């Protein structure tokens, strides 16, 4: 059993210690937001944050992760409120969405260590492959996220999940059955 911290919770993995962290997360912990695209580090779709650093989880074994703090896309925020998540939606910098979790994690790790990255730093920090071609929007999205993180700007592009019917009815007249003349 290998013990580590995943999204703030202590976890013990009962898998072959040589299992890549990617597959322990996906198949043992059911954290399927972290994606498999190649298994050899080419695509960066499996990027997670390990002790503050963006790493490709296909290249790290469970054994090597022992005692470390791992954050996956599911742990980035509880309600899509991380500036990177909001900014990716605001810039519509997502198409099929398969590479998105890896991009979000790489960008979040960048902003955590550098609150005001330049264009070249952003490009260097996001080597993720995206075949739909959202690249032209990524630099803008990360810059927007940085401004939001620095509290220079606010955005609310992606609503929180699980809005109750009552809250929806308050916000949206069409969803208020009591909306009568």
């Amino acid at each position: 059993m290998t013990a580590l911290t995943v999204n703030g919770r202590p976890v013990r993995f009962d898998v072959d210690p040589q299992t890549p962290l990617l597959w322990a997360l996906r198949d043992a912990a059911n954290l399927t937001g972290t994606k498999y695209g190649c298994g050899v580090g080419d695509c960066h779709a499996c990027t997670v944050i390990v002790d503050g650093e963006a790493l490709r989880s296909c290249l790290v074994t469970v054994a090597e992760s022992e005692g470390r703090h791992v954050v996956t896309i599911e742990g980035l925020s509880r309600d899509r409120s991380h500036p990177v998540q909001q900014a990716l939606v605001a810039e519509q910098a997502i198409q099929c969405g398969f590479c998105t979790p890896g991009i979000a994690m790489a960008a979040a790790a960048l902003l955590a260590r550098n609150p005001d990255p330049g264009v070249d730093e952003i490009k260097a920090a996001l080597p993720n492959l995206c075949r739909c071609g959202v690249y032209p929007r990524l630099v803008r999205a990360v810059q927007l996220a940085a401004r939001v993180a620095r509290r220079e700007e606010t955005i609310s592009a992606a609503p929180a999940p699980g809005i109750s019917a009552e809250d929806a009815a308050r916000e949206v007249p069409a969803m208020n059955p009591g909306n009568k003349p």
Partner: protein
Amino acid sequence: MQISRRGLLAGAAVGGGLLVAWSLWPRDYGVPLTPGRGEWAFGAWLKLGRDGVLTVAVPQLEMGQGISTLLPQVVAAEMGADWRQVAVEPAPVSGAYPNLPLAAKWAPLWMPLASGLADRPDDLVARRWAGEKGFMATADGTSLAAYERPAREAAAAARAMLCMAAGQRWGVDYEQCEAQGGLVMHGSKQLAFAALAEEAARFDPPDPPPLRSNPYQETATVGNPSQPVAYPRLDLPAKVDGSFLFGGDVRLPGMLYAAIRHGPAGDTELAGYDIRAGARALGLKQVVKARGWIAAVADTWWAAERALDALAPRWRTEGRADSGTIDRQLEEALTKGEARRILTRGDGDSNLGAPTVTYRYDLAPATHAMIETASATARMADGRLELWLASQAPAQAREAAAKAVGLSPNDVVLYPLAAGGSFDRRLEHDHAIEAAVIAAEVGAPVQLVWSRWQEMIAGRPRAPLACLASAWTAREDGTPQALRLRVAMPATTKEFGARLFGNKTAVAAREVAATGPDPLAFEGAGTPYGIPALAIDHVAVDVGLSSGRFRGNSHGYLAFIVESFMDELAGRVGREPLSFRMALLGHDPRLAECLQRAARLAEWDGGAGQSGQGIACWRIGDPEGEGPVARIACVATARAGEGGVRVGKLSAAVDLGRVVNLGIARQQIEGGLIFGTSLATGSAVTFADGLPAEAGLGALALPRLDDCPEVVVEVMRGDGPPADPGEIGAVVAAPAIANALNSAAGLRLRRLPLLSEGI
């Protein structure tokens, strides 16, 4: 016999919901939607709940192109709904959602001997076939052409029913009521859709449904590329927090994980494997094998993959795919093969003598390289198979999986999931068959995920080809008066059709690869230009490699050939390539305007003096027909540098007819241009002895953020039916880049990818 719509409605109501008669079908396919508690179905497209949630069923595969936003948007605009109340779910496989334009277009594939009977969308034969087969494929940019109208009619019927319910309460004529923002209004009175759902479902909709006078349209504000998005994509919030489910993300109780190996490309048979070494692999539960593959089932996917390493399968392969052989066969077919004429315009090439100029162009097989590998989840229990799958042709995938495990398609439930990219790769369904066979044998739910290597070795790349392009030009100014393309390539569309509709194996389907002609593989060969005489010849040849559909399809290779050749024809006589093209576009002022606008965006300098600028344009669709037409012009800035081609900037002006969602249109054009760039710089797969030389994504020279060109897109204000924005950008980039390289250094590259000639 005329079937009364009222009769249809009465029959459908037995199912529980109320069918909105948005069109007359020769058969009744019922209401495929199952409303939840406090929710009512309004036909095959809509459910409305007393909580006000309006759920739109989308019968097309979401693979990034935004269709799961576009069709709900069409519904919301027509119905007068509030975008915040709109939810989306994938529609089940059903005859209620036939893709009629595609059924008509692909009639030669599903009815190879008598396609003339059904080549118009309103033909009863195509209609009946598409309905009976549940043909709802997502392909060839037909989504809006097929579904905008039915979605509008369903929404209009539902709006009328809501107005009827409100009108009855208020004692007013329903036709005097209006719906807007999710409210039905009359004078100062208003009622929310939420309050009316239950009553409205009891009314019969008017026939025909009262459509609003104009379909919804968005127009770009000139000079403001970041104008606010009126209808933000519905799928993005779930995609940004990891909760959006792809085929490999399904989790079922007791589910096991399967990895798979296919043998070398060719006619491959499993010859043996080391069962004793495999038995020692940790976590291995079972081995499942078929003629051409072997799968390991284990606790985790990685354990299954390691078990396959240990099993070390051995293969017996006839006719191993080999790039040297492919090149030789294309060469021989091109120079000696018997051609079939696909298209003649004017007098073709008769009585013309020797052409003024002939150049040869080549394309290597190109792989889709979507990031999500083939993934499917299957469960077999109580004589029923359940499949969780992303498929561009779900009915055909379901039928093939059913056949593989000896079930009727009616005993197979397919839960449609979205795809992590596709680019037409998910028109194939080998993995659905495999997952079904494995689940049936294991007796537990199984999730099959292909490794990246499997995508490389058992993919269906774009067909390789060789082309001799010849022109007869006017002596005074070099204007082409006749053009001939002689193309050697597999009959790739027929081969694909044999797999999709004939349920043939890849090897069996290749039997038609050498039987031309394949007109569907030459769509767009007429070129956008007013060249008086045209002759298009196809030499069909089986090159020993299975090929498949690919983003842009025929337009991808034809645009590269024609637009490279046009540049060369201009260059031979020292003419400026933009005005050279304009002179041949007098009959298509919209495309001419695209060229001018792209030139302005890019500050076009004529491509002279080693500027590194190149231009190309293209058109998808027939301006003479009634269908949608997409037009684009693109100026590329590129140089051959260290490590390959560096594309600095792509500026494109595009005319898509009426635009439904400007934000999505821009996304698609931008993304298409970058996808096209990847075809110019890489994406090729080469085979030696049945094995790909490129082991994975890292070997394909795909663009990343740091070498992505700057992209500037102008979406022009257009009219006419809305054209698909997904393919037109992807086909224009490669020739623009090739022309830019020629301008930069006089380097004319006539082979795709451009790198393959070695710079």
